[in-house]
């Protein structure tokens, strides 16, 4: 049965991608249907699970033995516990909504069938990732989502920038994948297995050094998939893909896979405090990094991408805190899934109405033209900045509290960073909001003289936005109510109450203060003043942030240029040195034989001399042999 969860979208992908043009007309509805079916099955499982007690909720289904090699047992087997269930519902739920949204968004694209095929493929891979009962199968899903992401980012392949972005995303992810692969090897050599159950239950047997190595490798994998520093560079470029893709893959689901991985491998991280520290550091750095980048971008999707990076930084940080943070990481993940998907869909809706213009400096005053989008986007905005009462408030507040609860200097630093992050979040989101929906209209006719006529998007697009807005508003409260979410996850992730040096009220107040400061600053800068149509030069930090804090430049100079130089010189060396050595040998023999050839002068008497000389030598040799 669990297989059906994965099977339904997989079937959709197979049918749509192999089916040919016949499916052009109805293919997208088939995709929505299968995605919805997967969601319904997920809900059925969820209801079934609720009917059982906490410790008894895990389901397991063994399909077939996959790679049976001596000492190496990998099975295709699924495991559905509370953690997976959470993801299944998020993935299929948001996924289905975005499928429906895409029907409208991609209406005029001739390759819509293929788009839906890829979306279904993504769902299948993502579900496989969260349902796998061992790391190897997880790895399949892990790369599967990478592939889907590659295909979808590069969906508009005739744009060279899209193709390049897709390749970049896949490559950077591959670096992370290599980390995951090495982690699996380490588990295999340490435990002789890489299924969750045996490895996690005996994790404490292994030495801490091993576990730290495993943990760091898993973190590398998580960094790749979740766009954390230092492997974050692909996420901004990934915005080349269609907006629903950005919403689903690069905001709500795939990029959170890293958080899932770390939470799932909690037992390993718990036993390797050093690795945990690194996780926390990575989370904290990315949190600020993404937020700063988000402040500087004028492209609405890239600003949101920076935000995504930053929010996942929060999650990773929470996951790095250990049992006091896992549940909050996942909780933030779910609420983020709602509001960030909603924000992206809103951005897509804006672009839809603005002839695919992405520069916020050319928006302005759209609230009158797109009321539904404005309201849903606004609710998402309030949720993400952590407006009290909305879902972001609950989940983020918990994380900040847990950060303080880490204890010691670390706790204070982390707490301060998360608070600072909250303030910057409020700042950049207010900036987005103000530049897009408030102020004067700033759009102009484009090069062909078409002036955009902002209009509300069709029903198929607005409904998913409304649904997600509901989620953004209420999910947090629901989860927080009676600690229901924490209790739900506790059997899998364990939970430990952090003891914060500050009282919960103090933390909440601090958060609210940070929020007010951020919103106020942005409002002063962008809400009250007119926004210039052309970006001002800005401070050094702004300029650096616009260029992703120079990370891309670093990559370009060190990796791309260096790599190009390396490969060029190797190609040269292969021709000249390796092949040259062989050719040189050949030439030497050629020259030698050219010399020897002169002995063949055609004079019979010369040959006779060699003959007699040879005979003499033979006789001499015989005599010598006899003498010896």
């Amino acid at each position: 049965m669990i297989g059906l969860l994965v099977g339904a979208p997989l079937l959709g992908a197979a049918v749509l991608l192999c089916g040919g043009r016949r499916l052009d007309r109805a293919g997208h509805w088939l995709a929505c249907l299968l995605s919805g079916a997967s969601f319904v099955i997920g809900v059925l499982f969820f209801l079934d699970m609720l009917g059982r007690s906490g410790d008894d909720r895990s389901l397991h289904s063994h399909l077939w033995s996959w790679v049976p090699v001596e000492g190496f047992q990998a099975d295709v087997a699924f495991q559905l516990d509370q953690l997976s269930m959470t993801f299944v519902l998020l993935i299929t739920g948001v996924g289905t909504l975005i499928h429906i949204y895409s029907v409208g968004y991609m209406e005029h694209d001739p390759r819509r069938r293929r788009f839906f095929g890829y979306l279904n493929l993504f769902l299948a891979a993502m579900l496989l990732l969260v349902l796998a009962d061992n790391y190897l199968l997880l790895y399949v899903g892990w790369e599967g989502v990478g592939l889907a992401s590659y295909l979808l980012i590069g969906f508009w392949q005739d744009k060279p920038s899209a193709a390049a972005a897709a390749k970049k995303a896949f490559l950077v992810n591959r670096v992370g994948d290599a980390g995951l692969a090495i982690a699996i090897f380490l588990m295999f050599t340490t435990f002789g297995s890489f299924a969750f159950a045996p490895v996690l239950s005996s994790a404490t047997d292994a030495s801490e050094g091993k576990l730290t190595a495993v943990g760091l490798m898993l973190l590398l994998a998580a960094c790749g998939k979740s766009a954390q520093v230092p492997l974050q560079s692909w996420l901004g470029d990934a915005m080349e893909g269609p907006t629903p893709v950005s919403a689903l893959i690069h905001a709500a689901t795939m990029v959170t896979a890293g958080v899932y991985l770390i939470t799932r491998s909690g037992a390993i991280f718990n036993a390797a405090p050093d690795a945990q520290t690194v996780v926390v550091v990575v989370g904290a750095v990315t949190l600020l990094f993404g937020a700063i980048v988000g402040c500087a971008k004028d492209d609405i999707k890239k600003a949101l991408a920076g935000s995504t990076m930053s929010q996942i930084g929060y999650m990773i940080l929470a996951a790095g805190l250990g049992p006091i943070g896992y549940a909050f990481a996942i909780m933030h993940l779910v609420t983020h899934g709602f509001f960030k998907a909603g924000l992206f869909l809103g951005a897509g809706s804006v672009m839809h109405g603005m002839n695919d213009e992405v520069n916020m400096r050319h928006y302005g005053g759209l609230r009158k033209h797109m009321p539904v989008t404005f309201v849903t986007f606004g609710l998402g905005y309030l949720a993400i900045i952590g407006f009290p009462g909305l879902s972001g408030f609950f989940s983020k507040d918990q994380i900040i509290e847990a950060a303080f609860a880490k204890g010691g200097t670390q706790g204070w630093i982390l707490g301060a960073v998360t608070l600072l992050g909250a303030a910057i979040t409020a700042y950049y989101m207010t900036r987005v909001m103000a530049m897009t929906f408030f102020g004067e209209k700033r759009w102009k006719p484009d090069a062909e003289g078409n002036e955009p006529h902002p209009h509300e998007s069709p029903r198929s697009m607005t409904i998913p936005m409304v649904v997600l807005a509901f989620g953004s508003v209420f999910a947090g409260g629901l989860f927080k109510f009676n600690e229901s979410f924490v209790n739900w996850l506790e059997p899998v992730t364990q939970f430990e109450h952090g003891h914060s040096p500050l009282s919960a009220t103090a933390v909440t107040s601090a958060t609210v203060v940070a929020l007010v400061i951020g919103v106020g600053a942005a409002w002063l800068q962008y809400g009250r003043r007119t926004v210039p149509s052309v970006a001002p030069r800005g401070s050094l930090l702004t300029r650096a942030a616009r260029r992703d804090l120079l990370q891309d430049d670093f990559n370009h100079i060190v990796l791309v240029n260096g790599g190009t130089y390396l490969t060029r010189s190797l190609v040269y060396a292969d021709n000249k040195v390796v092949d040259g050595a062989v050719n040189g040998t050949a030439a030497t023999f050629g020259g030698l034989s050219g010399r020897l050839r002169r002995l063949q002068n055609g004079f019979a008497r010369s040959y006779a001399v060699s003959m007699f000389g040879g005979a003499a030598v033979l006789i001499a040799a015989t005599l010598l042999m006899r003498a010896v």
Partner: protein
Amino acid sequence: MSFPLLTVTALVPAVGAVATAAVPAAKRTAAKWLALLFSLATLVLAAVVLAGFDPGGDRYQMTESRAWIADFGVRYELGVDGIGAVMIALTALLIPFVIGAGWNDADADEDADGAAGSGAPGGGGPAAGGVKSRWRPTQGFFALILAVEAMVVISFAATDVFLFYIFFEAMLIPMYFLIGGFGDKAHAAGEEEGAKQRSYAAVKFLLYNLAGGLIMLAAVIGLYVASADQLGEGTFSLQQLTQARASGDFSLADNTERLLFLGFFLAFAVKAPLWPLHTWLPNAMGEATAPVAVLITAVVDKVGTFAMLRFCLGLFPGASQWATPVVIVLALISIIYGALLAVGQRDIKRLVAYASISHFGFIVLGIFAMTSQGQGGATLYMVFHGISTAALMLVAGFLISRRGSRLIADYGGVQKVAPVLAGTFLVGGLATLSLPGLAPFISEFLVLAGTFSRYPVAGIVATAGIILAALYVLLLYQRTMTGPVEKPEIRRMPDLKVRELAVVTPLIALLVVLGLFPKPLTQIVNPAVEHTMSDVQKKDPKPQHPVADHGWFDYKPAKHSGGDHE
């Protein structure tokens, strides 16, 4: 003696080669169908071999043994273990696709002869141009392919070292003509330069392999002498030698064993090819037509890696272990070096060739890691690499035949005009970069895991290879398939035809099916790997903290006492 199945399996393509060659010049199409028919018959026989192989039975099955050159103890001995059976099946499987993909490849030569008469620049092959009635390119092309198949099958089945050697070397002859005689007419510098490059490539191929082979001949003779010294009667029989070694009658002095090992290994390392003996492969694969390139890398070169497993490890276990560190370093260099060079290539086919060098590095790494995962993975790798490279290379061949150029820069935006071609190309590429879910992933992962468990550093370095693999495949795809359509030749490019689809689809289906369900293969391969492991007297390293065989339901996370949330 029962029905000589293996002999017949090799004989069918041999007969097919003769029959195809004998078809009159005018009936080209008949020759093609005849060749396809014979290759399919071979496939059926190979399937029977695979089906008839009993994984629980003897090490070598379907054995045949007849005296051949009695004076030197040379016997006609055939027999397959699991690895051999699988490799024969791979060979028989790929040849029909090679024939199908090369359906029209030789016609160009035919037409060139007809049109240009005496001055035809058509190929550096034997007697190009002029004597049309004698030189029948189509018949020759398919007959040579079948001849190669027959020899490869015998090589995989031979358990007599001398017999193996003969066919190992004889294979070079048809391959030489296939490389030198038929090209894809897509050389950047014109056809004349192309013909020159082609004959250069063919000669290079021949010289490299011949040099390796001759050194091996010396070692073969050395082995015979050593066995004659110790057993009283010289023998080349692998089974006899292994048995004698097991019973202690036959043991080589360290130095002798090492020298003999080197002799064998060098020949196989040229064939495989291992860095730094690899430079013939890009030339050969670049100049030959795509089907022939597939034949080289997916079939013929596999004999090299297969022989390392069967002969190097089987005959010289001590020396193999002695050489392991060096071989592993060479394999690692091959992996990284091949991948880096693939990134730097401008020519599609040479790119695939360098990718293959990288992959052969993985195979050798798996073999010499001397763990059951590594060797099992290496064997699977041979099969899966054969299929995946065939898929990628054949589609690349279709692409090249449409545009008449091998340079990556001449493409761009193909995806828009020929989506099916681009899609299949992408799948082939993804298989090459070992995407999970496709077959090569399993083998690569096994090799890496097997290597890592004994040599962690080597495992990590090799893992870097998978990142580079993604780089070269995606760069190739990006440059050829994506982007705007700018060139008029590409705007007119047709999508895959039915014949081409018929060639590619089964390969892709196989990649997917074997990627999800490789069990039938692993079952056959596993016992053979165990035998090899016992030959070299190596045991898998034990995990430091082996886990009990937990079922999932046994797992309950430890309760933390500090949880006061309830």
